[in-house]
């Protein structure tokens, strides 16, 4: 894991001091709310329906037990004893007092954490593959590149007032577990002639105008990475639309001028920027990479697992994935208990997961964009005891990637932008389908409470969008989206439904899938093969 040196620590400490100063000036009336808003937002502090929400950055979703316990302590001391893990691999506290935020940030800084650029029209927290460093299929660990980008983008003087927010993801496998092409910039590390480089996709995103990012550059080496990103961002900062916030994301610019013209402008800018010497030397990437060296795996760890406990075997098959090291496995801890709130964890649960990470996973944890947690480096021999401890804490739901593993935005229960509630609908769906979820297989269901699409409904095999229809909550249903390597955008089925109606419609759709599926087909595969019509007939017929 990355460890701060004196420079990193000094910068984060200065940030705490800066925000304390800004809060003091705000409370003293020296800053108007209008002037304070972008400052607090750039530090992840939102004003929601009922209280301030503080979003803490978890760079590329990686953290250790000490950091995890600190999050639990903040939940206990400053919030209502729980936190919410987000689709950006971050953590949100929902009930924060403005005057407490400087102290919370100071506490975070003691464990190398912060809330820098978790909001605002700037480069946000860099996201990555939650299985980085553990996945059997990666060409390299993508996190050193993500850390390089984190540092470059932190307080970037030119790109702190972009037309709109800017999200970057870095992965290093063909299997995309991070929705890479639905980011403003998605980077896939690939190998070419023995050298590592990034394939750069620009202009993806969800929101009201979902787009899949086109390939802009097929290979950028680490030596050129900062210059290339600087060029890509500069073109956007200069020419991205500022007249309409709904058309201000880079995807609109790339779409309006076309990928070829955008590419040409970036290449031209890159030639100018490359000459400035802004790229860190190879030694810097090497310094960072050394901190992500694989842990000292037990090379004699037995590979066999005793499956005699049937409940354990179910969890094993559903939530445990292959590790690159023999005798080890990757455990996903579901934060989607049936009937619970997707992504929420109590401080006691957070502490327990920290204990498990420290004891069984080389002190490492991950947050996934699907709002779950991961123990990335577990000996197979320890799986059973881990499962038992998770079971006692209500964290052993065996539903990774099943219909009950729902991504849901906070919705109208918290968010001032929402048109409809997401959480109660997610709970209702999970309860209704829990019994048949394993038979339905991989089925990614995602719910957004408004058109801004924080719940990734465009990328759902089944997506649900809550809208306001003449003062009542209405839900539009869509099928066929994917945020994985087979990326696609979901299509709306037809007229929307009320809350019970949409659950009913999903049932008809899944019944249709069960009737039509061929051997080995997921819901998404059947939909892609037969098209919308049979589903439409079942739902509206």
């Amino acid at each position, binding site marked *: 894991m990355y460890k701060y*040196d004196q*420079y*990193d620590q*000094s*910068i984060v400490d*200065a940030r705490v*001091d*800066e925000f304390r*100063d*800004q809060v003091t*000036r705000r409370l003293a009336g*020296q800053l108007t709310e209008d*002037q304070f808003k*972008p*400052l607090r937002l750039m530090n992840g502090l939102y004003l929601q329906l009922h209280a301030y929400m503080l979003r803490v950055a978890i760079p590329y979703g990686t953290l250790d037990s000490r950091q995890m316990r600190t999050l639990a302590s903040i939940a206990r001391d400053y919030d209502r004893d729980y936190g919410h893990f987000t689709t950006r691999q971050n953590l949100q506290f929902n009930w924060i007092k403005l005057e407490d935020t400087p102290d919370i940030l100071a506490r975070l800084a003691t464990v190398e954490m912060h809330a820098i650029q978790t909001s605002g*029209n700037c480069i946000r927290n860099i996201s990555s593959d939650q299985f980085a460093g553990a996945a059997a299929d990666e060409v390299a660990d993508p996190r050193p590149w993500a850390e390089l980008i984190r*540092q*470059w983008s*932190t*307080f*970037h*003087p*030119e*790109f*702190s*007032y*972009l*037309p709109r927010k800017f999200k970057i993801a870095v992965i290093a496998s063909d299997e995309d577990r991070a929705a890479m092409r639905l980011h403003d910039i998605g980077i896939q590390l690939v190998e070419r002639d023995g050298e590592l480089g990034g394939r750069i996709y620009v202009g993806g995103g969800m929101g009201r105008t979902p787009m899949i990012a086109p390939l802009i550059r097929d290979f950028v080496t680490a030596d050129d990475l*900062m210059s290339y990103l600087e060029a890509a961002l*500069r073109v956007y*900062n*200069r020419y991205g639309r*500022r007249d309409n916030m709904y058309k201000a994301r880079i995807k609109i610019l790339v779409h309006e001028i076309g990928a070829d013209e955008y590419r040409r402008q970036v290449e031209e800018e890159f030639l*100018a*920027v490359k000459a*400035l*010497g*802004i790229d*860190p*030397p190879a*030694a*810097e990437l090497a*310094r960072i990479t050394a901190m992500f060296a694989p842990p000292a795996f037990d090379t004699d760890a037995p590979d066999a697992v005793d499956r005699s406990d049937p409940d354990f075997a179910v969890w094993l098959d559903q939530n445990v994935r292959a590790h690159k090291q023999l005798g080890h496995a990757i455990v996903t801890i579901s934060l989607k208990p049936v009937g619970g709130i997707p992504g929420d964890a109590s401080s006691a649960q957070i502490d327990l997961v920290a204990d498990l990470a420290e004891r069984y996973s080389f002190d490492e944890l991950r947050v996934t964009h699907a709002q779950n947690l991961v123990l990335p480096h577990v000996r197979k021999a320890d799986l059973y005891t881990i499962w038992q401890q998770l079971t006692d804490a209500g964290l052993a739901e065996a539903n990774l990637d099943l219909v009950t593993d729902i991504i849901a935005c906070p919705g109208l229960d918290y968010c001032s932008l929402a048109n409809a509630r997401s959480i109660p609908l997610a709970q209702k769906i999970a309860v209704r389908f829990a019994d048949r979820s394993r038979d339905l297989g991989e089925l990614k269901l995602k719910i957004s409470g408004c058109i801004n699409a924080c719940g990734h409904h465009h990328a759902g095999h089944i997506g649900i969008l809550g809208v306001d229809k003449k003062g009542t909550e209405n839900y539009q249903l869509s099928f066929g989206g994917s945020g994985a390597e087979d990326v696609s955008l979901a299509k709306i089925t037809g007229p929307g439904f009320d809350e019970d109606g949409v659950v009913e419609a999903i049932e008809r759709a899944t019944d249709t899938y069960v009737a039509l599926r061929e051997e080995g087909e997921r819901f998404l595969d059947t939909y892609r093969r037969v098209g919308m019509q049979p589903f439409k007939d079942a739902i509206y017929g």
Partner: protein
Amino acid sequence: MVESATETTLRFRDDEPHDEPAVTLDAFLAEQTNATAVRLEAGEDARALLPYLDRLALVEVSFPTFRDGRGYSAGRVLREAGYTGELRAQGDVLVDQLPLMRRCGFDSFAPQAEIDGEALRRSLDRYDFRYQAAADAAVPVWKLRHG
């Protein structure tokens, strides 16, 4: 150190303030290419000035609202091309944005509303280290780490 040239302009330069009024970019390009001071509106292309940098003593960049960050790029484009004259940020220039503008090469500020001197001093002195190279003299952290 902050040296005030006029009642409202903050200058971080030792030379004498330039007193010729700035002309618009259109006027400069069309007929007044002997002018030595130009004003760029937020959406205008700073690169249009590159052929004339050696004769310019002042470029004023407009920040119509603090949210409009195009001027940051304009400043860097001019500095990267070798412009050494006065680079002034004019408009909705606030104390918390000013350090970023300094890093993008601005050395003169004409804020619409008065900036509190004490808050500005704290703001400019706060960070000892910078992660990235920009248009100021700050040495990026990676260079401090590796020489």
